[in-house]
């Protein structure tokens, strides 16, 4: 951890947190992020991600371990001296102040002069295209407009670190996608280091440089979005990110980055060993629906093919989803692009499916 401590801008070093003295909400958290990074903490509710954010902001104290900001331990620094901007879940725009006063607040408490304040407020509002709304109260804005102002207030005093706690939680899908783009471009344009908390995986994948997947008080995997989706390191991540088929069995042979797994009903499949090291270990393999292949010609000749029975054919516009019965399980999903030459299938139809070994990851059981 010493290297990371030296180079990271934000560092969590063996941090633990308990609220009641009995249960650890955060267990042994280690994280190091460089300056300028957009990092997302993703996880189901109760996984400890918001607690981590609150500890970083200074509203909760770590029961063990150290948090460092730019090389300085900040455990004993009160929130208002940390210089960390924060965007809250429900905007937290002060209802008794106008938008301009809201933005002016952090500058006023820092004793900044009036003309300088006005200049910064104008720039910040223009950046989110809200220049015309400075004199309105938050209640006079629509939810979407408030949403645009909230991320503009936190960076207005030019903090080096901005924290965002599910800032897009209450938005409809379209506005959400638009705001995702605005927030990332705001962060990148200003060169701000950002920690973003969400339980929405799409948001995490599209916005972040790196994503930390939280579960049970620990980071399960910390990786760029692509790695997270393509190369999940354990069953939880595979299951949590994107759609996933899981099959359980025992490793039969293992040979470098190839292995075969005998499923519980006797079927043998190809896989790539990730969390397994020797034959005989139990494993849960993970394969993405879009990587399942029903046309053997597209697979290598020695690939294992397995029997499947179509249960349901679901038309989804741009894609087809086919629910299959595979190895005794009837929740196996195969996904196809809606292409001209793509044939449709009907329930009861028997097909043979397979996949490339590298698309099928043998993870922990």
């Amino acid at each position, binding site marked *: 951890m010493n290297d990371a401590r030296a180079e990271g801008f934000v560092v969590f070093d063996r941090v633990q947190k308990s609220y009641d003295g009995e249960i650890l909400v955060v267990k042994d958290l280690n994280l190091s992020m460089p300056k300028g990074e957009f990092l997302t903490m993703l996880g189901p509710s109760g996984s400890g991600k918001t607690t981590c954010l609150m500890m970083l902001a*200074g509203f909760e104290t770590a029961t063990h371990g150290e948090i460092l900001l730019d090389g300085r331990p900040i455990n004993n620094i009160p929130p208002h001296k940390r210089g960390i901007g924060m965007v*809250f879940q429900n905007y937290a725009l002060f209802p008794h102040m106008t938008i301009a006063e809201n933005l002016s607040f952090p500058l006023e408490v820092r004793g900044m002069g009036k003309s300088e304040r006005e200049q910064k407020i104008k720039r910040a509002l223009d950046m989110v295209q809200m220049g015309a709304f400075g004199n309105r109260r938050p209640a006079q804005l629509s939810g979407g407009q408030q949403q645009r102002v909230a991320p503009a207030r936190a960076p207005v005093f030019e903090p080096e670190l901005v*924290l965002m706690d599910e800032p897009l939680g209450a938005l409809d899908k379209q506005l959400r996608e638009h705001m995702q783009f605005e927030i990332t471009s705001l962060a990148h344009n200003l060169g701000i280091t950002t920690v973003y908390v969400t339980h929405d995986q799409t948001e995490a994948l599209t916005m972040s440089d790196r994503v930390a997947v939280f579960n049970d008080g620990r980071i399960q995997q910390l990786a760029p979005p692509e790695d997270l989706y393509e190369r999940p390191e354990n069953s939880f991540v595979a299951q949590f990110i994107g759609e996933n088929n899981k099959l359980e069995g025992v490793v039969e042979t293992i040979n470098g980055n190839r292995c075969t797994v005998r499923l519980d009903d006797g079927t043998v499949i190809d896989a790539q060993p990730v969390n397994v090291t020797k034959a005989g270990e139990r494993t849960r393999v993970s394969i993405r629906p879009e990587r399942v292949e029903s046309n053997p010609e597209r697979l290598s000749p020695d690939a294992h093919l397995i029997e499947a029975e179509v249960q349901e054919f679901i038309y989804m516009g741009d894609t087809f989803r086919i629910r299959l019965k595979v190895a005794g399980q009837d929740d196996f999903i195969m996904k196809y692009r809606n292409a001209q030459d793509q044939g449709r299938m009907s329930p009861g139809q028997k097909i043979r499916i397979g996949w490339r070994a590298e698309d099928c990851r043998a993870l922990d059981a």
Partner: protein
Amino acid sequence: MTSTATDPHPSDEELTGGELKRRLARALRRQKIRALLLIAPLLLFILLGFIAPIGSMLFRSVENNIVTDIMPNTVAALQTWDVDSTELPPEPVFRAVVQDIQVAAEQRTAMQLARRMNFEVPGFTTLMRQTQRAVRRWDVETDGPFRDQLIEVSSDWGDLHTWRALKAYSSEYTSGYYLAAVDHTMVSGHIEPLPDDRSIHIMLFWRTAWMSALICFMTLLLGYPVAFLLANVKERYANLLLIMVLLPFWTSLLVRTSSWKVLLQEQGVINDFLVWLGLVADDNRLSMINNKFGVIVAMTHILLPFMVLPLYSVMKTVPPSYVRAAKSLGANDWTAFWRVYFPQSIPGIGAGAILVFIIAVGYYITPELVGGPSGMFISNRIAHQWYVSGNWGLVGAPGTILLVAVLVLYWVYDRVVGIDNVKLG
């Protein structure tokens, strides 16, 4: 239907022609009737128990038909007499007085008139009693002229003041009670201030107002931190605290006030303790009761829940994220409180303050029990007028002034803070 076969919807014209409104009204009528029936018992109760007494109070504050009822001839005869005249009224007026009092004596209503006039002119009862006794034997037709005879019975009949007062208060409706309520009189036929030794109401109104304001401020000072604590501790502690705040609420008002008596009196707990500590000499004990101090202490205690509860209900709705946001933006604890939290608790302060002030202004029992003469409120004076003097007019007039003052206050408050911003729970 003006619509064509291809258009199954009624045209806009049809809908805006009032037909839709009528249909809606018909559809809602049943609901409205049901709603009205549900609130009918309460509505009736309020009408009988609240609106009617207030109406009667308003009426009594101006009603003055006793004089015209009992002395109709005199009132009529006095019509031509000028109040500013330095001459006594002419003989026909004296004659009318004899006539009227003879009738009144027979119907035993003379003393009602005497009592009414005595509110304005001390000594009128004596005058009436003497006159009543004398005129009984007289014959209106033959025994005249009466002017000198009446003056013989009581020299007051020869005094211009008597006649001026009689004329001033002879109209069926009078502003006399309102004048009296603000320490003025028109016994001379003109409005003028009462002499200082009889002026008490303005002083009492003023005292009631400033003491209520002070009590209001004290409850705010004491209640704000409690409400803040209530709104910010864990639920189970908050419930316990809330019970402690409400506990005095559930105890009888009389018990609470009396216990203050036990604590504050000269031989009371606090004085004994201070003497024991040596802070106060035994022969120079503090007088903390039967004065303003006692009233302020006891009423602050009694009215505290009325401040705490609205404050609490408002504070509970202020999300902690606002203060957190302020801190993350660089505000220290005090700035975050003063610039972000406090402004958002103002509706609660407003609600609590208006509630406490209005209740305090009309408070009766506590000033009565622990106030003594110097801690008396206007309501105690009103009560006195009722059960000691029986002067209903002087119950109605200050009562109405109090009511109007509260309504004006409410209106001003609505203008400044906005009544919609008030949250009581």
